[in-house]
């Protein structure tokens, strides 16, 4: 397996033999198709990070993330979510499917 991108808490691998990707979440390794990676991206980018800094909107500063058709469940804190957002964004740049944030804004 080849490392595609690594952040503080997460690593994305590509397995050419299995034609799939692996994300190491630290707690466990999750195998994903590109569709599932896109779904992860959508879920992570939809998390309103501002609510983590507002006690009324997100009292405990945690997010529950269900992945791969509810096969995996993660409870992540603010630091992990911030890192996951950056990880997802940069992973797609590394995969050649995104041009990155600096040119993506319209």
């Amino acid at each position, binding site marked *: 397996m*080849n490392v595609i991108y690594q952040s503080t808490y997460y690593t994305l691998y*590509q397995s*050419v033999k299995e*034609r*799939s*990707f692996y994300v190491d979440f630290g707690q466990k390794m999750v195998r994903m*198709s*590109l*569709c599932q990676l*896109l*779904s992860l*991206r*959508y879920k992570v980018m939809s998390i309103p990070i501002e609510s983590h800094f507002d006690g009324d909107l997100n009292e405990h500063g945690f997010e529950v993330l269900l992945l791969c058709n509810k096969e995996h469940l993660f409870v992540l804190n603010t630091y992990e979510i911030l890192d996951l957002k950056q990880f997802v964004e940069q992973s*797609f740049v590394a*995969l*050649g*499917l*995104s*041009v990155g944030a600096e*040119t*993506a804004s*319209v």
Partner: protein
Amino acid sequence: MKDIARQSMSIKVESMDLLNQQIKMEAHASATYLAMASWCEQNGFFTSAKFFYKQTEEERGHMMKIFEFLVDTGGNPVSPEVTDINHDYSSIVDVFENTLEHEVAVTKSIHNIVKKARELGDLATERFLDWFVLEQVEEENTIRDILDMINVTGTEGVGLQMIDNKVADWID
């Protein structure tokens, strides 16, 4: 190393995000035209109601066209959440003026995605949207023509009834 990602997806994720926003906009337009049909039915503009039933189907068709494009290119189309639909209009003129505003907003959004796709070098998305650019010219023109007809007919006396009858010209 093989490029599995590129083999699975043929557009940029930035284009996919913008097309998902467009899906939401088309769904919102479809729901708005249904609300307008409801207003027309309740206020005796039965031909205009038929026009808006047709418009609501057309907008859903546009939404599905984008949805299917995202499927074909290996993207992740998202079923949109549609909220905040206005059901209150002061007159039939207000209904059609709002329709034109809606169509202009859709046109601007489509143009914005075309420009972005061009900037990204995403030829597939750019070419796909050619049809939408021309479709919006037609959509805007239809509503402008109806507003011109309303202006010529006037809303006094039997004007409103004549306006409603005349809208039939734009149904087929």
